[in-house]
């Protein structure tokens, strides 16, 4: 059962229960929809980008604990950061999620987001954790088509 505790860490459970930045800001100038066709998770990410800096980040939608907590922690983590730094965060997070679970987690620079290291043990749940990030990226790149985890 230790794997289960790895997966559902208290930070994740807390952000699932009380998601931060769960709103639709009127001032947002970038947004995108994300969709995981496998499980029906659906979320929208709203960004306020000024001078290459994400001033505000928020989301709405419905999903499992992993995808909700990931979106919540992500919006906290990217606020106030430059777009190019966020791209790097996306890559680090993606690398962490897709790395071999038996290798030590490379979570440098991810701060609180490192709690998702346990998701690696559950390959079918990795997409839950990455959905918010794919959607964020679609919002930054201004893609018209909804982001998917496929």
């Amino acid at each position, binding site marked *: 059962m230790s794997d289960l505790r790895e997966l559902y860490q208290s930070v994740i459970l807390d952000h699932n229960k009380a998601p931060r930045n769960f709103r639709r800001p009127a001032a947002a100038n970038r947004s995108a929809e994300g969709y995981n066709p496998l499980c*029906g998770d659906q979320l929208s990410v709203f960004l306020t980008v000024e001078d290459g800096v994400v001033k505000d980040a928020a989301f709405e939608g419905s999903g499992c604990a992993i995808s909700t907590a990931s979106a919540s922690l992500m919006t906290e983590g990217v606020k106030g950061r430059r777009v190019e730094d966020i791209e790097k965060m996306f890559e680090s997070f993606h690398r962490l999620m897709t790395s071999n679970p038996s290798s030590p987690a490379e979570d440098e620079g991810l701060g609180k987001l490192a709690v998702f290291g346990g998701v690696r043990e559950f390959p079918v749940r990795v997409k839950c954790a990455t959905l918010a990030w794919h959607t964020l990226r679609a919002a930054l790149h201004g893609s018209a088509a909804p982001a998917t985890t496929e």
Partner: protein
Amino acid sequence: MRLDAERVRADFPILGTNARGKPLVFLDSAASAQKPRAVLDAMQRFYETSYANVHRGVYELSERATQAFEGVRSQVARFIGAAEAREIVFVRGTTEAINLVAHGLARTTLGPGDEVLITAMEHHSNIVPWQMACAERGARLRVVGIDDRGDLVLPELDKLLGPRTKLLALTHVSNALGTVNPVREIVKLAHERGVPVLLDGAQAVPHQRVDLQELGCDFYAFSSHKLFGPTGVGVLYGRADRLEALPPYQGGGDMILSVRFEASTYQGIPYKFEAGTPDIAGVIGLGAAIDYVSRLGLDAIAAHEHELLGYANESLSRVPGLRLIGTAREKVAVISFVLEGIHAHDVGTILDQHGVAVRTGHHCAQPVMERYGIPATVRASFALYNTRADVDALVRGLNKAREVFA
């Protein structure tokens, strides 16, 4: 005859294995059922002793393979009460069976302003082919609603069966809700209006006796893999005159009488729908699966599962915060539910850690989820090899999930 589930379990090698280090509790037979040794052995034996292509060779081996293959066609006809073996078309699965009819209907019958009637509880495979056919021909797809319990709203069906309705396609048993539809009455009503009916029997055939003479439908589709047979094989039943009226689905070898560059002529039914080398060993496996369930007795299987459904309903009603989705008057042992405050996928992951395999998500029935305003459910589906111990393991796992999310 009562079903001895413990003895039945011993027939299924996979049920003796572990999942996540725990004895496997398999509650996802509505997605695909496990295979008894008799099916696996029959296919192996066929490959080792009787395999050759069918309908082609003059040699003894091919003749033997053809006989075995065609023998299963007759066996399927008897199993579901078709009048003749030529009314049985072998396809890849229920999905292909429905596509075959939809494709044929679009080419022969459907025109602008015509209507195809389906219901709100259909699997995507009984929605999308009709959507495509309607879009192609400028026809309209109409949908009969369901009520809060998961029963069809029959007055709505009555109203929607109109002069423009070219076909009613509905599921015999709902995969997401477990509802058993009153198909005999519905077919009768549709026929009174001159509307042919296709029944999706994928979830019905493994759990109860199906007699097409009694149901009277025009088309019936089901899959081998949900009936404890191999994947890759399915059955389309069509009343002979209905099948004859449909054009071939795919062109190729085996479905023709003669081929000339100017024009080719086609075989009669069912062969005109069976282009190319079929899944021969798969069909043999389906035959063994039908033997297997027939030996146990479909009535005994239905009684066993009904008893299990009652026990599961009672046990689950004691899990705090659990809400059943689908409480139709007549149900098979398919139980969809949500747990308050815990998303279906999290429930699924926690159950999996306890060796309990359930389906989570929209079950290829997104309109059903929308109807109940939920993104996903947990679905536990039971088959002839499940026991009360499986229900108990499910309940224990659900209580663990509640602890994790307390």
